[in-house]
């Protein structure tokens, strides 16, 4: 049990995927202009990321490894992720119009979110078991959502501040992300 919680906390805070491992920066810079969209994207990504990590884990260990086809992993994983995104979309449309309305527009973009592929590949690189992969994915996705929401709230403030022209927009966003990343480095003392 302790190793599972360590994996979860490690992926959530210590090795935060956005601020320490540079995955999922496109949505981080692109969508966090407001708090609500940041939260909805975070939720949608959490959902797909956990599903994708578990199914790629099963496929890799069940199909690719026994057949000696590890080199096909990139092609297989990207197809699995794109297929999952489609499935989730179809399922949500049929079952939950509320969720569909909340997450609908953000779902297709998840295919090109490198965090999803990154987590699947990293989980396989570390030889995690199925349960460990699930916790790793949930931790990673929760960390992504946390940072998206925090940054979204911060950016709403940034938009109203008076800045030199050269720093408006992306530069100041990157610098604020840098300061946030500095703060997250403090979590490295959490797990020794």
């Amino acid at each position, binding site marked *: 049990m302790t190793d599972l919680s360590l994996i979860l906390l490690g992926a959530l805070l210590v090795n935060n995927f956005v601020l320490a491992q540079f995955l999922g920066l496109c949505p981080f810079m692109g969508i966090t202009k407001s708090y609500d969209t940041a939260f909805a994207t975070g939720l949608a990504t959490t959902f797909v990321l956990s599903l994708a990590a578990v199914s790629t884990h099963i496929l890799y260990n069940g199909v690719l490894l026994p057949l000696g086809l590890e080199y096909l992993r*990139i092609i297989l994983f*990207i197809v699995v992720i794109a297929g999952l995104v489609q499935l989730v979309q179809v399922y949500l449309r049929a079952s939950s119009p509320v969720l569909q309305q909340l997450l609908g*527009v953000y779902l297709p973009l998840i295919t090109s979110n490198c965090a999803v592929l990154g987590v699947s590949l990293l989980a396989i690189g570390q030889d995690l078991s199925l349960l460990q992969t699930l916790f790793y994915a949930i931790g990673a996705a929760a960390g992504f959502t946390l940072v998206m929401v925090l940054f979204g709230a911060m950016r709403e403030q940034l938009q109203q501040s008076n800045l030199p022209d050269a720093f408006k927009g992306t530069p100041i966003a990157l610098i604020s992300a840098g300061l946030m990343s500095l703060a997250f*480095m403090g979590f490295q003392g959490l797990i020794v």
Partner: protein
Amino acid sequence: MNTFNRGVLENNPAWAQLLGLCPLLAVSNSVVNALGLALASGFVLLGSNITISLLRHRIPDVARLPCFVLIIATFTTITVMVLEAFAFTLYLRIALFVQIIVTNCMILGRAEAFASRQPVGAAVLDALGTAVGFAIALLILGGVREILGYGTLLREMDLLFGPAASSWVIDLTSTAPLPLALFPPGAFLLAGLLFALVQGLAKFLTPPARDLNAVPAKTIDYEK
């Protein structure tokens, strides 16, 4: 030539379109890592642009995105195998970011916006322009971070160019001026300053008259 220049300056994937930000920040902690990734993404970009341009009349419109992604994934796999065979130590350092070239919106963006509707020659120029633009951003950031973080320039080039290249290293200072530059916060801060510099310079120089026939830049708007 116009196509080439547009990719390098006006539509630079890194600072004008904010594409490929993840690898840009992640592997720019030394020049050799940056160069390795720049070459890898350049190869994938060139290969997929050529293939997609050649197949542009055969790929059905409704299934074009899955086709593009599969073509890009194929070239990424080739790159991974070539790096594993010839530059294994370097590959181990940047492995994750070579593998996720496939989700780099810059490459899919060029395929969708340009290669899928232009002849091969133009697609090659476009790929080269975009690749050079991305490489310039990677190398500038890689150089600055290496100087600040290690106090050297061109260290460990032997990982890419064989043992003879290990003497290329230039020692600038005996101690690292700012070790923070090697850590994630340093990447964000320095990239922010670099983009601010570009934005500031762009304000000073008068914008050149736009070519009216230019292909509009594909910007990916996440809010829609």
